[in-house]
């Protein structure tokens, strides 16, 4: 019913190029005008404010320290709309959960610039005494409330707002120092927007982060690919994160967290993390961003979680192990309630403490060398390179333009993405040995051998596990982690 506008009818009147000051400030003015609180933000004051904050509250410094010491910083997600309540929560996460970085995600209305709806829900929540919004309405809060939240804690705050630039303006102004990046990822958050709109917005977002950085306030962007109900698809994830990073870097972002998502297979997690770092390094240098400092971020199983706390605890610990062995500087955890709904504080504290315990327990350990893991890494790099090269080719060297064209024909594809511009032909599954493979490679620019490799692995599993239909495989993949043990 709802259809994407064909590429031929769309204009791509921008480039992967740093936005001019004029355009940047013009755009900011428009955005800040969308809601009365916008006028509270004065960039110079904000930068001065950041500089007055203790260094220990800046995520970049903390990530740099973690890199030096070989530790993994823990970080929960979350967000609710009542500030007093959320202050209590964050303090609990920090003091009892020993979280190293805290998070405040914007809510879904705010993300969609429906500040009117967010306002109503916020007012209602205050009356009810419980949050009916699924995140933080930064814009409605305004600067004072937003700062009050961040001032109440002692560790860095991640403002996780994606391409939601107005929220980011506020979160940055209030003292947040790391943000959700993910140019291609964001498409899924705005299913009716063509990719060029999202990418353009992301450029503005990155430009703002870059601006702070250029003025002495280091800000980190958290580049990560889209997720769905089941496995991540490795080479596509790697390619996406790298594309994101390149677009962000072009706007002046100097600190990027390369986010690597849990596969449930420790060894493939490691292979992917290594592939991602190696390839990101190559491409950043190649594109003139050798000065960008990257960190490795890990993320607990982002797909469907079991609705049982004990089962969830198992996955959380597995995530922590993987985070350590991938050599990540940061782990974004899931709460035990992930499969249920926005978590109780106890559930978040539990996950944080459990994660930290596992990290402590394996702290000194190294992954023994294995050629099999190396081969897996090489395979992921080979596939991701094919995607990346095709994107550059399609964009005549411009990665942003190339991405838009690539999405159009499914050279970039997100399994289960809500975007109407997404091809939706690629699906993940695992093989008989618990390694994630492509159930469908769709239009990914892979060689015959690669396509054959994945097909064989999947067919092999179908035989072993006696599953005939592909969609049964997909349901099995999801339910094997969520069903009652």
């Amino acid at each position, binding site marked *: *019913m709802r259809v994407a506008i064909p590429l031929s009818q769309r204009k791509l009147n921008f480039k992967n190029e740093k936005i001019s000051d004029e355009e940047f400030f013009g755009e900011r003015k428009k955005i800040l005008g969308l809601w009365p609180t916008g006028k509270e933000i004065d960039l110079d004051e904000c930068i001065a404010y950041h500089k007055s904050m203790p260094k220990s509250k800046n995520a970049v410094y903390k990530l740099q320290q973690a890199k030096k010491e070989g530790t993994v910083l823990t970080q929960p997600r979350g967000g609710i709309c009542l500030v007093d309540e959320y202050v209590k929560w964050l303090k609990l996460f920090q003091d009892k959960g020993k979280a190293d970085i805290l998070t405040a995600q914007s809510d879904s209305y705010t993300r969609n610039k429906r500040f009117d709806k967010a306002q109503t*829900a916020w007012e209602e929540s205050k009356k009810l005494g419980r949050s009916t919004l699924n995140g933080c309405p930064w814009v409605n809060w305004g600067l004072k409330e937003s700062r009050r939240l961040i001032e109440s804690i002692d560790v860095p705050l991640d403002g996780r707002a994606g391409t939601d630039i107005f929220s980011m303006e506020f979160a940055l102004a209030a003292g947040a120092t790391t943000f959700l990046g993910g140019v291609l990822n964001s498409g899924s958050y705005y299913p009716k927007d063509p990719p060029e709109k999202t990418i353009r917005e992301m450029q503005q977002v990155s430009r703002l982060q870059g601006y702070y950085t250029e003025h002495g306030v280091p800000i980190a962007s958290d580049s990560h690919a889209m997720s*769905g109900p*089941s496995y991540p698809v490795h080479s596509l994830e790697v390619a996406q994160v790298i594309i994101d990073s390149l677009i962000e870097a072009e706007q002046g972002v100097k600190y990027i967290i390369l986010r690597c998502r849990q596969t449930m297979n420790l060894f493939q997690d490691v292979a992917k993390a290594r592939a991602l770092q190696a390839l990101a390094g190559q491409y950043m240098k190649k594109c003139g961003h050798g000065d960008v400092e990257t960190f490795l971020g890990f993320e607990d199983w982002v797909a469907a979680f079991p609705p049982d706390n004990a089962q969830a605890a198992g996955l959380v610990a597995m995530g922590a192990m993987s985070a350590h062995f991938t050599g990540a500087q940061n782990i974004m955890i899931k709460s035990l309630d992930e499969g249920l*709904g*926005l978590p*109780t504080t106890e559930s978040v504290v539990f996950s944080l403490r459990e994660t930290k315990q596992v990290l402590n327990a394996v702290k000194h350990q190294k992954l023994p060398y294995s050629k099999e893991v190396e081969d897996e890494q090489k395979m992921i790099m080979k596939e991701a390179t094919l995607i990346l090269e095709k994107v550059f080719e399609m964009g005549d060297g411009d990665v942003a333009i190339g991405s838009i064209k690539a999405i159009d024909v499914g050279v970039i594809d997100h399994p289960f993405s809500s975007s109407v511009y997404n091809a939706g032909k690629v699906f993940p599954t695992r093989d008989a040995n618990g390694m994630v493979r492509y159930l469908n490679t769709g239009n990914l620019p892979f060689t015959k051998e690669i396509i054959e490799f994945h097909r064989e692995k999947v067919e092999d599993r179908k035989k072993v596990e006696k599953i005939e239909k592909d969609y049964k495989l*997909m*349901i099995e993949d999801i339910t094997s982690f969520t069903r009652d043990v």
Partner: protein
Amino acid sequence: MADKKRLLTGVIGYDIHYGGNVILQLALKDAGFEVISLGTQVSQKEFIEAAIETNADAILVGTMYGMGEIDCKGFGDALKEAGIKVPLYIGGNLAVGSDQMDASKKPEIIKRFQELGFKRVYPNPVDLEQFIKELKQDLKV
């Protein structure tokens, strides 16, 4: 093909959780239904227009992000107004917060959505087989 019942489905409001809806579609197709997908971030208006246009036999609303109740306000009435009489279903995370997902809260949540005009209400975790059984019953297939 001719005698296949036609189902209209989409994810309401500003919700973009599409994964579950994809799975739902696959299961419904496997159960012999024709499925028309509206994707995510579907407004009440879009549901209604599509229902008229496609002459659907039932409307299946998905909502995951917890704010579905706000999005569904007045949905039943709007359908009535548009003269649509086919049954309306909803499934997913029907409230914000894990404390709302407790089995003890289910009756209350179901009641709230029924009052909004839903024939049947399926709070997570949903047993798809059960749902399809009840759907077939309702549609007499």
